[in-house]
């Protein structure tokens, strides 16, 4: 039984098992599913992730508000031009994350990982790295299981709700999960996976949730792209043997306390950050009219 990274690593001990092995064994116990059924369900969810990461590449996908869209296709076209600075793997991961995030904003079908707002980071990162490494299907699914294990620990000991912990709790958690997943895929040890996860979370500690007009679009779509580069960065750091110094469990605890210290204006209420910039408010009025939000609230200032 594990509640945190320390306990999970203790369970692994010198058994040679991966984080994924322990997470899957735990799942067999708590959900009474067979290993095969668990792997099948992981495959089903991976297929939905894969589709969402590709639907917005060749075709521009627009959000239901009409406010944003088409960036997945823009990035994909740019990759084809061969002019980018980052390596092809990271560029593709960014395009996948943008596509997935835009499919979400269009009320399309996605897998929350751990949330819908951050749904592009894990699949975007995992798919581009798996392509680079030419990974086996089984290894990709096990990387997903490792990501789930990291997400379990964050959910158990902190939160993955933007309304409770800000964007660090959503995009931070997703980047931590993705970093651990690809570190495992690259052959990193369970300890290295948690180092990568810890650094990824530290990199966005304090990140606020400030969606323009309260929609999962601005800045969410681009923060999904940013989450991919964060995860890939931390995988490289961990694989180079660089450590976090602050253990993952302590970073998670710190993130939770930072989240609690954030004023509610910076936790998904659309009452702070870029949401209340002149342009942010103007965009909100464009969508909902001068009356501000549909809930007729008087507190955001947009209706004044």
């Amino acid at each position: 039984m594990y509640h945190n990274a320390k306990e999970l690593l203790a369970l692994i001990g010198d058994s040679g098992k991966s984080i994924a092995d322990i997470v899957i064994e735990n799942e067999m116990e708590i959900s009474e599913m067979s290993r095969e059924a668990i792997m099948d369900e992981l495959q089903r969810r991976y297929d939905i992730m894969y589709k969402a990461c590709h639907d917005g590449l060749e075709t521009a996908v627009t959000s239901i508000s009409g406010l944003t869209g088409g960036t997945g296709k823009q990035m994909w076209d740019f990759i084809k031009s061969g002019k980018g600075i980052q390596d092809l793997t990271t560029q593709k991961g960014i395009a996948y994350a943008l596509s997935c995030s835009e499919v979400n904003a269009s009320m399309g079908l996605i897998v929350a990982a751990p949330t819908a707002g951050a749904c592009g980071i894990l699949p975007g990162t995992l798919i581009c790295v798996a392509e680079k490494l030419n990974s086996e299907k089984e290894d990709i699914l096990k990387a997903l299981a490792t990501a789930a294990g990291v997400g379990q620990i964050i959910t158990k000991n902190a939160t993955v709700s933007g309304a409770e912990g800000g964007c660090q709790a959503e995009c931070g958690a997703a980047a931590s999960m993705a970093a651990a997943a690809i570190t495992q895929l690259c052959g990193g040890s369970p300890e290295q996976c948690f180092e990568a996860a810890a650094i990824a979370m530290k990199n966005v500690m304090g990140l606020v949730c400030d969606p323009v007009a309260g929609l999962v679009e601005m800045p969410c779509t681009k923060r999904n792209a940013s989450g991919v580069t964060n995860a890939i960065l931390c995988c490289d750091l961990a694989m180079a043997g660089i450590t976090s110094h602050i253990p993952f469990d302590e970073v998670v605890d710190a993130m939770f306390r930072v989240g609690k210290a954030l004023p509610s204006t910076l936790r998904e209420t659309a009452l702070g950050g870029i949401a209340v910039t002149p342009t942010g408010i103007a965009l909100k009025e464009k969508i909902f009219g001068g009356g501000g939000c549909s809930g007729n609230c008087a507190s955001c200032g947009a209706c004044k």
Partner: protein
Amino acid sequence: MNISMFDILGPVMIGPSSSHTAGAQRIGKAMYMICGKEEVKKVTFHLHGSFSHTLSGHGTDRALVAGLMGMDASDARIRNSLEIAREKGMEITFIPDDLGDVHPNTVKVLVVTKSGKEFSMIGSSVGGGEVEIVEINGTKAKSSGKYPSIIVTHIDRLGVISKISSILAHNEVNIVTMSNSREKKAGMATTMVETDHAIPLSVKEELEELDYIKQVVLVEKFA
């Protein structure tokens, strides 16, 4: 670890927000189960915190109503649920409200069913599509919807709770959690039990025959 990996890599859902769309759908679905899947004639949603600030932008309104009609998080009809509900003649009202010291994403749902039964519920969307039902019919509750449950409204009398648990045991239904509260000593009380197994209708019928028991509601798992 008692959190399923499929709660982390999930839900599989129609976007755009796990807490404001999928979580809202699940809260609506909770009420659908509390109503015994009966069609709803009239519903009022009292929206607290960010639920009221970002209502239609996240499809929270559509998702709540979709859940109330029994739709799942991955059901593409969520996009048109308000139109579907109005075609069925459902009266829907959304009211921004302050529900006090509750989770930032909380909603109070009041319904009247087609047959005239009234139910109320307060539910919070706690992140990643997970929900917690904190009050049912005015009584404190604690349900994530992952288990079937039974809600018994009864008069506070010695032995009623033991009767409930023994009837469940006789029907081979194992108890996961149990919570109860009362208005005042010897007044109205509510006992809520979450179980491992589906609760057969005969349990409800057996309980309803007992003295002091006023109402029994079976709630299928909704998450």
